[in-house]
């Protein structure tokens, strides 16, 4: 019944979309493999001798940056998991009708925080961090990043906590378990999948974050890869091969996660719709 016209249109749309989304991806990889002279003399060449020169420069000269990125991403992810897991436990427990109303208010507040654009938090945070002596330091950046990603992390983890059957909690209560025992013995193990998802997303986010990084870390201290990528663009007009090699490194955590949990990544990220 389906007309030939529709089929042809389908094929056309798929081809156009593939080109639109594959070309930039391929362009990153192709140019990261060009030597310095190749990228200068013929930046648009498709045929060239692949070289690892750019990766060599970026990895050797940027080892500190990679370590800084790693430090930031690991610590932000760690802090977020430590504070978010008890929070979703509290938000998912049904103790009284009054508590349910409290939960509604808190969830609304989280949504509001999630909607605040980052360029609008960076302005006051700069003065707040300066006043508290946290400006220009990794701990200050980590706290800022934590507050940036925490509302999203809680919203992402909450459905997992809500899906734990209340019968399990009731059984534990009858056995006389304290709340802390219930939390450690039931909630934490049952949230393992959710924690893995949150870990992946926050890690990708913190690894790629650059607005806070370039403003809250003083120039000269070790910047993360994302910050160097953001700043180099204004400093060097050439050196696209190195920038593209940096781009590949900035994408690395995403690539790894994508290979494992592509389906869940998509459904989870849709939750943080306004990332």
């Amino acid at each position, binding site marked *: 019944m389906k007309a030939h016209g529709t089929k042809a249109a389908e094929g056309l749309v798929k081809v156009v979309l593939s080109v*639109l989304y594959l070309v930039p991806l391929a362009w990153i990889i192709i140019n990261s493999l060009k030597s310095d002279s190749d990228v200068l003399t013929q*930046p648009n060449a498709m045929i060239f001798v692949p070289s690892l020169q750019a990766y060599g420069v970026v990895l050797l000269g940027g080892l500190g940056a990679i370590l800084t990125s790693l430090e930031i991403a690991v610590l932000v992810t760690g802090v977020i998991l430590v504070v978010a897991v008890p929070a979703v436990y509290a938000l998912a427990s049904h*103790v009284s009708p009054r508590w349910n109303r409290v939960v509604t208010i808190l969830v609304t507040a989280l949504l509001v925080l999630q909607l605040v654009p980052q360029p*609008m*938090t960076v302005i006051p945070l700069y*003065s707040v961090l300066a006043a508290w002596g946290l400006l220009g330091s990794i701990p200050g950046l980590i706290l800022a990043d934590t507050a940036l990603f*925490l509302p999203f992390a809680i919203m992402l983890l909450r459905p997992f906590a809500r899906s734990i059957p209340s019968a399990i909690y009731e059984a534990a209560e009858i056995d006389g378990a304290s709340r802390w025992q219930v939390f450690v013995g039931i909630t934490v193990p049952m949230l393992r999948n959710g924690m893995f998802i949150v870990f992946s997303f926050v890690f990708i986010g913190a690894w790629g974050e650059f607005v806070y990084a370039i403003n809250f870390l003083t120039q000269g201290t070790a910047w993360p890869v994302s910050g160097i990528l953001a700043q180099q663009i204004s400093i060097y007009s050439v050196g696209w091969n190195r920038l593209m090699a940096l781009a590949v490194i900035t994408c690395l955590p995403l690539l790894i996660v994508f290979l494992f949990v592509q389906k869940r990544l998509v459904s989870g990220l849709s939750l943080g719709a306004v990332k």
Partner: protein
Amino acid sequence: MRRAARAPWPYLLPSGLVLLAFAAYPLFVLFRMAFSDVGPTNLLRGWHFIGVENYTKVLSTVDFWRSLWLTVELTAALLVSSLGIAFMCASMLLRPVRSSRFVLALMAFVWAMPAIVSGSVWKFLFDSDGLINSWLSMVRLGPVDWLSSAELAIWSVAMVLAWAGLPFSIMVVRAAMLGVSPEILEAAAIDGAGFWRTQRSIIFPQLRPTLWILGVLTVIYAFKSFDFIFVLTKGGPGTSSSTLPVLAYFSAFSGFNWSNGATIAVLAMIVVAVVSVPYMRSVQKEAAE
């Protein structure tokens, strides 16, 4: 049993403290800044309350109104892309065949990429002797000043933002299309409705709530658009691609006019707040079910 009925406040404490100190308190500081005289010399102390003076000052500048207009133009372009183009693409990617799955996975990956990465590669592609211009000059159409022309920069930015946001819109619309009950579609087919008739009379009305929310999210996306613009043009040339958040940022961090930046930020946030109301309602309804 009594012990278990106590409200679990202590479990909220760590998250609450972090968010109060580094998310809620800064918002309060932002508002205070917007009603005080904070310049290059008194960022840390010595703020004086000056009422709405910042607002009358900001609202009387040409830059603010132009920036607001640029943001509106950008929003319009993104709405066309995330509603119209996404609807069309989603219906073309609806059948669960391998080619659809490939395109969807590819787009999901690109969408999840850090903005700094996709922004950088587009800056490279749009370069005066970049790939796009080299293709255009092959057919004697180029070179085009994609990012360095004051008229064109905002539209190049809009294209990149649309490109980056389209995967999400397609995924949302497609998921909603898959939720349309097959019985209705069969009934329509029996009545002899063709492809376009089905789209217009069955699918579109069924999708209206989804599209409505997607529209709200798109407006918010446009008003949050900062990272891509920062990478691509830094709001320039001049302020020709400075949307409100970009203008706010550079007023504060390049002009050191913290109060102006904060005031523009507050004004932009009022728009986001008003637009967000229907979105919040729908999320709350979902959460309450």
